[in-house]
């Protein structure tokens, strides 16, 4: 209970003078805060200034959740389309994406645009990244496309992996 009270007090005192009176009485019974209390306080404190953490001596947190190691195969993986848009400046459809959890320099990314009873494709090598393979800057000029709604699919293929995105609609003006 006391820790909750103090956490609230810290926020209130930090953020508003108006509530200062409400917490002034707690100062008469101060004990050095426990690590848990300090961590809890930090969880409700503004980040402070760059270079000046709110509590430089904050103890290291315990039980930190981290991203669990994944052990799935890539053969049936997904390509994530992070961006698919009509770029008026270049007059082209531009698609960016990535193949999560795959790092390969031997793969090929393929963009397929379907619409109006036809389809157009372009290819680029995948770029190996820290934790993924990037399929970036796949571009099809507007000259090859008629106005209307097109469906984009970004696929990836390497000697050991195959993956494709779900369809994404792109509007061509």
């Amino acid at each position, binding site marked *: *209970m006391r820790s909750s*009270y103090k956490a*609230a007090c810290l*926020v*209130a005192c930090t*953020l*508003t003078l*108006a*509530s200062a009176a*409400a*917490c002034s009485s707690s100062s008469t019974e101060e004990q050095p805060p426990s690590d848990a209390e300090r*961590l*809890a306080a*930090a*969880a*409700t*404190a503004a*980040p*402070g*200034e*760059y*270079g*000046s*953490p*709110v509590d430089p001596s904050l103890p*290291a*947190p*315990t*039980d*930190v*959740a*981290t*991203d*669990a190691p*994944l*052990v*799935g*195969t*890539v053969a*049936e*993986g*997904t390509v*994530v389309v*992070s*961006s698919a848009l009509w770029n008026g400046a270049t007059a082209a459809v531009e698609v*960016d*994406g*990535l193949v*999560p*959890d*795959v*790092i390969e320099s031997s793969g090929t990314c393929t963009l397929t645009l379907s619409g109006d009873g036809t389809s157009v494709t372009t290819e680029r090598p995948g*770029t190996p*990244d*820290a*934790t*993924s393979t*990037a*399929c*970036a800057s796949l571009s099809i000029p507007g000259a090859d496309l008629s106005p209307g709604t097109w469906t984009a699919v970004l696929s990836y293929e390497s000697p050991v992996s195959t993956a494709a995105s779900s369809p994404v609609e792109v509007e061509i003006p």
Partner: protein
Amino acid sequence: MRMLTRVLVIASVVAAALVAPTSGVAPTNSAGAADLRYFDPSNIISDAVFYDSWSMDGPAIQAFLNAKGAKCSAGEMPCIKDYKQDTAAMAADSLCAGYAAGNGESAATIIAKVAVSCGISPRVLLVLLQKEQSLITRTAPTVYAYTHATGFGCPDTAPCNPTFSGFVSQVYFAARQFQNYRKNAQNFGKRVGRTSTISYYPATSAANNLNDSRCGNAQVYMSNAATAGLYNYTPYLPNQAALNAGYGTGDACSSYGNRNFWNYFTDWFGSTQSTGGGAIMTKYQSMGGESGALGPATTSFYCGLVGGGCWQAFQAGRIYWSPATGANAVMGEQGERFLQLGSENGLLGYPVSDNVCGLPQGGCYQQFQNATLYGTPATGTRIVRGDIRAAFRAQGSEWGPLGYPTTDEVYGLPGDGVYQQFQNGRVYWSPSTGAHPVVGDQLARHEAQGGPAGLGYPSSDLTCGLIQSGCYQVFTGGNIYTTPTSGTFAVRGGMLTAFRAQGSEWGALGYPTADEAYGSAEGGSSQRFQNGTLYWSPATDAHAVIGDQLATYVAQGAEAGPLGYPRSELICGLIHSGCYQLFTGGTVYRTDATGTHAVRGGMLTLFKAQGSEWGELGFPTTDEVYGLPGGGSYQEFQNGRTYWSPASGAHAVTGRLLTYWQQLGGESSAAGYPAGAAKVSGTVSTQQFTGGRISYDTATSSGTFTPR
């Protein structure tokens, strides 16, 4: 209990109102982290902070590792605070400046070297090492933790790329990759200024999340290169459950990499944002960055300066930022002077402009909060500030008559005064007068008059447009007057009072044609003007002598002559439109009919006793005429004469008796000089002379001389 509830509500409401957190839900987990309501998915960290490559040096990093790893003892591998390795050389490329080989380099040294080589903050690298393998705080480190230190090239589902193993390679290539994201964004999925779809959880079949079918995704705007880079490196967005959990566990769709990055960074190094740092970075880039005039950075940006300011040093200068002034560069001579003068804490304050060049004479200037620096190759770089700056600006700054400053302020003048020398003049300042420029002929005259110790400080600028195209400038000890024809001269003290009483330059004297001349009789002085002269002595003060009076006065020897100093101005309104002027040695009278003549000594006493110009004699028609026998003299008046001799004193002789006496031979006759006043009885006037008595009867028109 009720009170506690109320406080909590106040706290969260106020927090929400003040910081507009990205989530309205307060963390429910107390596992400890900075308040994740401040986590901004589109701006996890600012570019300025992320690329702040000088933010910690090797010793600072070592101290940090020692503190965070205090509880660590070696496991398969030494603790990172104790880790050392021999490092190989790495060639420079477009992303990093390479790596110089070293023997037994500590982890701290490696981190510091990589940070500077690749332009990534060592703080970011420390957080990266913690986020991936907890290498900063973990005890009993494993081999795996070092070979996968930054997680670079080592996805959890794929074997690590053997080319990139080992601690130095992990750090170097991770840092290099973040520069790769920044400089070759087209090769990666996330780009500044675009909105990207970011999965909450890996979109893989293993995660039962193909096409984000289970956990979904979010549209995230990429505010800056650093944030885009983080999403390239770890392409997942922490979901609300992850954010609510602090450092703890969210739900089955939570990812933690970017959350933990923000948590650790904020807890260890404060905010991931820096207004000042961002402003400095923007300024630096606008000046061309590394290939611009400033060259590469040589320090981190430091904040916490007076007024909430920040600065950063570069090879050829510095950038200073404050909320009040924005970011501006100081370089070259201006920069050196800025540092000499105490930087932002000194009398200049923060720069409010860059150095602006292209002025006349190859000049440059830079504005600071409290002063301006002006420089030309010929004059050097000088500080102009305060009232002197205001006076300088009022004159048109470097385009005006003063030209550029050639000195800083010069102190030690009388009365706590100050001056600053400019190419064509000076600006003087004193507490009572403020600052005013003195240029050209006025300056030469001021100097000739003894400067501030003589003529005092200017209390006005030069004012022109006077009669005869004249100008004047007021000083505490007098005025300086100038016209094209009369020259430039000072009028001071009693002379100035008298000059003003005459109507100044509009009055009878006109403009001065000389400075005051000292060394006259009785400690007096004089000053010539176009139409007259002012004479001053301690006893008489200053009075003007003008026109005919002046000619008469000068003919009498002026102040060195018998008339002495004037003790009044010319006073008119007498009978016959007459005027007079008082001198210490006599009085000068004038009318149009009689001319201007001095009366003095015994003659004056006699004249006054006779009733002056109202009396029988009327106005003088000659000056006193000397050289009579026995050292005598006489003076002619309208209605008679006055005679004086040492033996007889002064007496008037008038009317027919005068004519008769003159017929006798006057003072050369046996009658001699008059020795008393004439007495009239009926028609007979009788007057004593030194040689006898003369009577004249107007009834008979006959005179009689009776010798003694």
